[in-house]
């Protein structure tokens, strides 16, 4: 099976993020594999181990994305492709990424593409489905189980806490939700082997694209941090009075009722 994983480098949102002049400060920020993409990498490796084939991890990013690709190789992926847009593109959005990936997949034999459900930075969840649409293949989002038997695929999909069972076929694109698997730690031998695995670097030129075709369709108006949480209030007195006070606060002060 030819298995591909779409991987994005994101900020580690557990680390402190600094926004200045409407931009997230790159210096000192920690970058990680988008956690949902880790489920995709893990699932790709498991499916390969069960059915044979090869796992290729693809990212659209910059030179520093190599670290995240090497981590995926250390987990057990076979090959990696870095489509480096650093020198060619000032900005991009989901349209840009989809267009680049579409060009990349044009001449590829694909059985299965896995992506994260969303990236934790911009959380649009669009690239996977849009790419499937462009490639003319079926897709299922937020999957929590994937069973492949020949060309038949049984998928379980998370729908706001409920499970939807989908029967479909290869080739297929899925986006991965928490609960699908437990991503492995890259082992030491894995890390040492990763540096010998092939990592191909492409630029948009190599995909016969030019920057005009890739101009984003959306505009970022502002980037800001969520407001700091204000101190809570503890209501006092008899429970009955507290309930009354709470209802009145919800009605009159926060106006949610």
């Amino acid at each position, binding site marked *: 099976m030819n298995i591909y994983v779409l991987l994005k480098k994101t900020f580690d949102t557990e680390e402190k993020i600094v926004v200045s002049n409407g931009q997230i400060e790159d210096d000192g920020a920690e970058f990680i594999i988008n956690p949902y993409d880790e489920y995709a990498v893990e699932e790709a490796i498991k499916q390969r181990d069960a059915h044979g084939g090869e796992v290729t991890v693809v990212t659209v990013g910059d030179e520093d994305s190599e670290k995240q690709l090497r981590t995926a190789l250390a987990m057990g992926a076979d090959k990696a492709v870095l489509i480096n847009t650093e020198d060619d593109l000032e900005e991009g959005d989901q349209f840009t990424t989809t267009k680049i990936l579409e060009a990349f997949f044009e001449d590829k034999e694909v059985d299965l593409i896995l992506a994260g459900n969303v990236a934790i930075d911009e959380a649009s969840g669009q690239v996977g489905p849009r790419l499937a649409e462009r490639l003319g293949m079926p897709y299922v989002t937020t999957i929590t189980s994937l069973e492949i038997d020949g060309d038949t695929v049984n998928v379980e999909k998370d729908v706001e806490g409920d499970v939807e069972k989908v029967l479909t076929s290869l080739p297929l694109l899925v986006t991965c939700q928490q609960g699908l698997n437990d991503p492995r730690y890259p*082992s030491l031998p894995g890390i040492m082997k*990763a540096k010998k695995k092939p990592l191909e670097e492409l630029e948009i030129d190599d995909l016969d694209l030019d920057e005009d075709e890739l101009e984003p369709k959306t505009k970022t108006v502002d980037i800001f941090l969520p407001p700091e949480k204000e101190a809570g209030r503890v209501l006092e007195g008899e429970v009955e009075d507290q309930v009354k006070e709470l209802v009145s606060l919800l009605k009159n002060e926060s106006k949610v009722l």
Partner: protein
Amino acid sequence: MDFELTKEQSMIRKMVRDFAEDVIRPRAVEMDINAEFPQDIFEQMGELGLLGIPFPEKYGGSGGDTLSYAIAVEEIGRICGGTGLSYAAAVSLGASPIYYFGTEEQKEKYLTPLAQGKSLGAFGLTEPNAGSDAGGTKTTAVEDGNDYIINGEKCFITNASFAKTIIVTAVTGKNDSGKNIISAIIVPTDTEGVTITSNYDKMGVRASDTAEVVLENVRVPKENLLGDPQKGFKQFLYTLDGGRISIAALGLGIAQASLEKALEYAKERKQFNQPISNFQAIQFKLADMSMEVELARNMVYKSAWLKDQNKPFTKESAYAKLYATETAFRAANQAIQIHGGYGYMREYEVERYLRDAKLLEIGEGTSEIQRLVIARQLGC
């Protein structure tokens, strides 16, 4: 000069940090209370290849360098000093001597399972009456046909209760000038006459196993002798040079943890209507801690780097061990001070850091011995 870690080194740091945070942190307090050695955690560490970092693949290792190994010890020590100590002892003392001095057969037979994490190693040097004075070893190994018969007593041996092999130092004879010849011999722990008991109730590093080993007419084949029979003493001095780097890295991890806990607490804790991190008295402590942690890190990494470059590192590893472990003690002590009364309570963990750090100023060469090593390197 280049102070950047390689991609592999920073990937190893991330992996070990994630592992330590996810798997070890939730149990660190409880393992300290119960003095419980986490055998299952070591199994997982073995599967991840952590026990074989500095050994080549052909002996079941991961083919990494000393610096990667030091980083791994630092990251585990940052979460649990006891687990870190057992890890450092397993690799630096239990497995490394076989890699440095073993025959091809010994490496295949004994190093491979240690590097793969399938068994744990230990190093039996200290005796009730031979600590800093390792030359005063009383344990003897007497030739008998094709065997050695070993008699003696070893104390404070890390990992011994869980080890399949212990490298034991013993007197095998006298040289021309009448001085004892000390050799190292690999003793499988299931050999008849080996009794291992773990009755110590320790102040710190309580998740680490520490045991007493009694050897009573223990018969092992002569082929278990490790390295050159005449140079046993030199060999374990070299082993201890390497071990110092790992203990230094462990101190660095505890110092880093102390700094992090203290900084986090200082920013949250309010007195006089403001976070205590606004006060210079606290700021000066945090500034000193942070500076010392970074200086310790530079020395630890440099000594690991020297070893990887096959350059002399005796003096530098003594600097690293001395400075990083004393930094750990100071940082943990200041972390408690910053926490005030809360810091004295176990659940805030900083008091454990202090108890764990204390051992590092004693084990694998006391701070005083490190100063002697340095002075000798200076030509005194």
